[in-house]
Structure formats: C-alpha cells, structure tokens
C-alpha cells in the first residue's frame, strides 16, 4: 500500500469522524443499477457537465464584463466594449465561445434528457416530483438563456430582448407593468442590463443548484427507474444507512455505471470544445435604440419556434394573448403536471400509444417550426415602395420571391445571394445596368417584357412579385443600384 494512499485514507477517516459523510458517499457510489444500461440514461450527467462549463466560463467572463451601458472613452457602451475586450484575446474569445455554445448545448441536452425520461416513463410513481423539479430546471435553463442573451448589448441582443420582454406585455392586465418591471423602465436601458445581469449571475445559479440538489438527491433516494422491477418493493424506505445491498441481476454504480457516465460527459465535453473552437461567436454592431441601420430582430434558435408560431397568428389582440402568453404557459403547466394526469401505469412505449403519439407530434411541431423559422427569418418585404432603395431592400425581395432558383442555386448562372453576385449577372451577361431599368435583363424579366436573351417572365411558375416590390427594384436600378 502506497504511503500516499494510506495518507488519503487517514484523512478521509479523520474527516468522516467529524462530518459523518461516509454513509452518503457509499450509498451514492455503490447504489444498485441494472446490468443493462443505455448511454441515454446518462444525459442528466451530460447536463451537469454543461452546467459546470457554464459556471466556470461564466465566472471567467464576469471578471472582465461590466453590466453598464455608460459609454467608454471610445464611445461604445461599457457592456459591449468589455465583451469586445474579452474577444480581443484568443483565449478570451474561446472562453466566450464555450459559454455561448454551452447555452445551446444546455437547451439541447436538457431537452433530450426530458425526452428520454418521457420515453421510458420514468416520471411515473414514485418519481413524479423528480419530473416536476426537472420541469422547473428546464424553465430555469430557458431563463438563463434569455437573461444571458442581452448582456453583450449588441444589436442582436438588444432587439431580441426588446421583443422578448414586449411579449410579456401581452399578459392580461399586468402585462405592461411586468414588462416595465423586467426592463426597469419603459424600454431597454442600462437598468435592464444590470437587472438581467443580477438575475443571470446571482439569482438563477442559486435556484439551479438548489433544484439540481433536490433532483439528483431524489434520484439517489428512489433509485433509477430501470432498476425498479429488480429492487425490493420497500427498498427506498427500509434500507439501512450506509449499507448497500446489490440485488440479483444488478451491479453497483461504481465502477459499472461510472464508465457510461464518464463516456457521455467526455463526449459532450469534446463536441462542445470542438464546436466552440471552430464556430466562434461574433458580435453585431453596438445596440442602437434608434436602429438607424435597420437591423431586423430575430430570436436565438431555441426561441425560433415561438417566433415562427407568431407569424401564423392573425392580428387580433386576444389571438396574440393566446399565442404569446396562454399557449406557452399551458405547455409548461402540462409538462409540470404530466405525472399527475397521466394515469397510465405502464412504462413500456408499446402500452402507451397516446403518450408516444403526443411526444412524437410535439417534437415534430417544435423541430418543424424551428426549421421553418430558421430558413425564413426574412420577413416578407413591406407592401410599400422603399424610398431610397439600397441592396438590403431589394435583397429582401429577392429572398422572398427568387430564392428557390437564384439563391439556393444559381439557375442560368445567376445568383442573387450577394450584391457582388447580382451585379456579376448570369450566362447572358449582366442583368442589372445601373441607372437603366429598361436595359436591365432582371427588370425586363420580372415585368414579363420582351428581352434580347429571351428570358421568360420571372419568377417562372411561382408567385408573381407584387407591383410595390417591382417599383422598389426599378427605383433601385434607376438610382444606380447602390449597395449602401
């Protein structure tokens, strides 16, 4: 026996004499698990890993970041300037990238964990409370994402949060007051940043740690679901402190389960590290409350489904109240109370056709809305003629009416994906002659006029471009087709 090992054992004994932790450690380490396992059972551990990543990188970021919008000597808001300062250093940029991607990983991992638990029916008696705490954890994770998103105080952050907090305003009666409370004023300001910062770094971590402790503690107390049939019925209540019995067909968590746990946590770590390395997050322009550059607000991908959903809502106040406030609230309540109203005792997916159908359709709807939202973030161009059209104005029209053939692919050699591509033209040469719409192939084609290249009326077989949009394009070409 090595002297170091001996010293360690003596230190542990000394500590245990005072803390009495040996029984708990033994029980946590050697609790019985089924011999057959799935890596999906360790998604909760992966979530804990991502949380540790968020905690460590968050503390590092907080040493430089300052939640203030007061302009620095260079005229940038302090919050924005400090994030820029963090990103100026390659290590700092990587730390921010880990934190940035960690947020997305957290949402994904926790969501997958919930799906797995739902699929195996692990929320049923006696683990109802574990599921309910899990739902609260999910909400906490979303709150983390929402409050953290504002902190860099760039255009993306500013306008996403403007819309996000405006949504709260649709809560009946108290909406406006609630929005004001969140923002610390009528609109966003330095007060909003410091509020969100306080919630993000002081309140939510405490809530999360407390909930995780309860969540994990209860899992240890009640054992994992798959072990249920193998454990004696009264296992949870009759067991003797510090004494672990391993029933037949089962194995102790250490070392049998720790392998899967470590493997999944390690895998998560590697994927996160690689993604964060190759896709470093940028920063848009500093928040401009006047939005002089016409930035188009768009939510982070995990709120995209809601953004997309709102596009389908007709323009009535109460329809909006329903879609923005009532529906999400009902969804969370439905999730929270699931173990109480799901009276089906069976755990096997074969005996739960309705639950499986509900799960599949929920996932399909969420994924579908997110996908559509991500691929149609450009709102249809306004039904008006732009005053001094620039590339950004006509680009929106192209994206709405020409994308299938001239952005996704370059039909006839013509791509309208960027200003340079559009000006370059296609196989028939330039399609835009600055200052001369009548000589521009593009304008002739969208107006269905005869042209030297015999291009048929565009868009071919698709929804025609509205007159207002055509007029915008005409004005843009007449003005010399300016990029800015």
């Amino acid at each position, binding site marked *: 026996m090595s002297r170091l090992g001996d010293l360690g054992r003596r230190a542990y004994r000394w500590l245990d004499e005072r803390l009495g932790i040996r029984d708990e450690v033994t029980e946590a380490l050697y609790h019985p698990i089924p011999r057959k396992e799935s890596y999906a059972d360790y998604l909760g551990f992966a979530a804990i890993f991502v949380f540790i990543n968020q905690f460590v990188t968050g503390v590092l970021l907080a040493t430089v970041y300052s939640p203030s919008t007061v302009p620095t000597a260079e005229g940038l808001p302090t919050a924005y300037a400090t994030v820029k300062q963090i990103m100026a250093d390659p290590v700092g940029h990587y730390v921010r990238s880990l934190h940035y991607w960690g947020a997305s990983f957290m949402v994904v991992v926790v969501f997958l964990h919930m799906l797995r638990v739902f699929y195996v029916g692990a929320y049923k008696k006696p683990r109802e409370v574990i599921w309910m705490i899990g739902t609260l954890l999910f909400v906490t994770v979303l709150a983390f994402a929402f409050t953290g998103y504002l902190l860099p105080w760039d255009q993306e952050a500013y306008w996403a949060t403007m819309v996000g907090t405006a949504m709260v305003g649709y809560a009946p009666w108290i909406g406006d007051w609630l929005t004001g409370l969140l923002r610390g004023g009528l609109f966003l300001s330095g007060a909003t940043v410091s*509020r969100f910062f306080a919630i993000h770094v002081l309140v939510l971590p405490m809530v999360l740690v407390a909930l995780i402790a309860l969540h994990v503690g209860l899992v240890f107390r009640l054992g994992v679901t798959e072990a249920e049939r193998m454990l004696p019925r009264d296992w949870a*209540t009759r067991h003797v402190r510090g004494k672990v019995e391993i029933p037949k067909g089962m194995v102790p968590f250490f070392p049998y389960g720790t392998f899967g746990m470590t493997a999944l946590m390690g895998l998560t770590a590697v994927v996160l590290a690689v993604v964060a390395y190759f896709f470093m997050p940028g920063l848009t322009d500093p928040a401009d409350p006047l939005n002089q550059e016409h930035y188009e607000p768009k939510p982070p991908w995990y709120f995209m489904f809601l953004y997309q959903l709102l596009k389908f809502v007709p323009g009535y106040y109460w329809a909006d109240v329903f879609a923005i406030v009532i529906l999400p609230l009902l969804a969370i309540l439905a999730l929270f109370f699931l173990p109480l109203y799901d009276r089906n005792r069976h755990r096997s997916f074969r005996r739960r056709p309705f639950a499986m159908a509900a799960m599949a359709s929920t996932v399909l709807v969420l994924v579908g809305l997110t996908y559509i939202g991500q691929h149609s973030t450009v709102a249809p161009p306004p039904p008006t003629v732009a005053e001094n059209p620039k590339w950004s104005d006509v680009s929106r029209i192209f994206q709405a009416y020409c994308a299938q053939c001239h952005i996704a692919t370059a039909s006839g050699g013509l791509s309208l994906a960027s200003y340079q591509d559009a000006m370059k033209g296609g196989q028939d040469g330039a399609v835009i002659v600055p200052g001369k719409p009548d000589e521009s192939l593009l304008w002739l084609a969208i107006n269905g006029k005869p042209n030297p290249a015999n291009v048929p009326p565009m868009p071919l077989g698709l929804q025609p471009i509205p007159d207002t949009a055509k007029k915008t394009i005409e004005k843009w070409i007449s003005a010399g087709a300016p990029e800015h």
Partner: protein
Amino acid sequence: MERPDDDVPLGGWPPEDEPREVTRRTFLLLGMGTIGGLLALAYAGLGLRYLWPPSQAKIELEDVGSSDEFKVGDPPVLKVTHNQGSEGGAWIVRLKDEGLVAYDMHCTHLQCPYTWAGTSFSCPCHGSAFDIHGNVIHPPAPRPLRRRLVVEEGGRVKVGGIIS
C-alpha cells in the same frame, strides 16, 4: 390494490398520541412561522418597491428640434429621445389635418423598430404596416401606433411620454 407504503409508520411531528389543541409547541411553531412570514413579506415588499418601474408621468418634455424642420408634406423624421434613461425615439410629422404628431418608434405588435417606407410605416419583424396617421393597414399589429406628447414652444418642438 396493495399499498406497501401504508404500513410504514409516519414519524415526525406532531406525534400521533398528542391531543389536537394549541399546545405550547403549536404556539411556538405558529409564532416562528408568523415572524418568518412577516420578514419574508417585508423583504419581498422592499424588493418590489426597489425594482418598481418608474411611472410614465415623470417623463419630461425633450427638445428635438426647431419647428421649421417639420413642414406639411415632408416625410416623417425619426428623432432621438431619452425617456427615463432608456434611449428611444419618435417619428415626427406635421399633418395637414392634425398638425404636429409624434409616434413612438416601436411597433405596437412586439416593439420592433418600424421605419418610414415612402408611403407608409412598415415593420420588419412580422410585417405590420401603418399609414401616416398611425392606423394599422397591415396586421399583425393589434392597434394604431402609440402617440407621444408633442408641443411647440417658442419655435421649438418638444416631445414627452406616451399618451395613447
């Protein structure tokens, strides 16, 4: 159905053999609970008072330019305002029938920034549009643009808080 949990005696408080009346213990417990509850309430009230959003009425008039800048027939102009420390803006236009009006720069749907697009105001987020009087001409905006207090004093234009 078998309920294996039922034969496990419930430990804890109060012991089963204790008579149900206000004992010294009950009284102490109630007292502690009350004091704890009052303290929690006090802190919650303090926090709420501290974080309470400032009132609209406190917005002061702000000079945004001279009266000559806004003529009948000119397109609306976006002017910076600093209501309650949060920077924002108002589109100001002089209408033939209504005189000088100021619209808060945020769309009434979800407060995205709309812009003047030649013949109407249009919002990039969900496609709402408003005419020059602020009326909705394209959903989903549920209500007309919010108007802000606007006054002319000594040849200067001043903008205040939201009034509609």
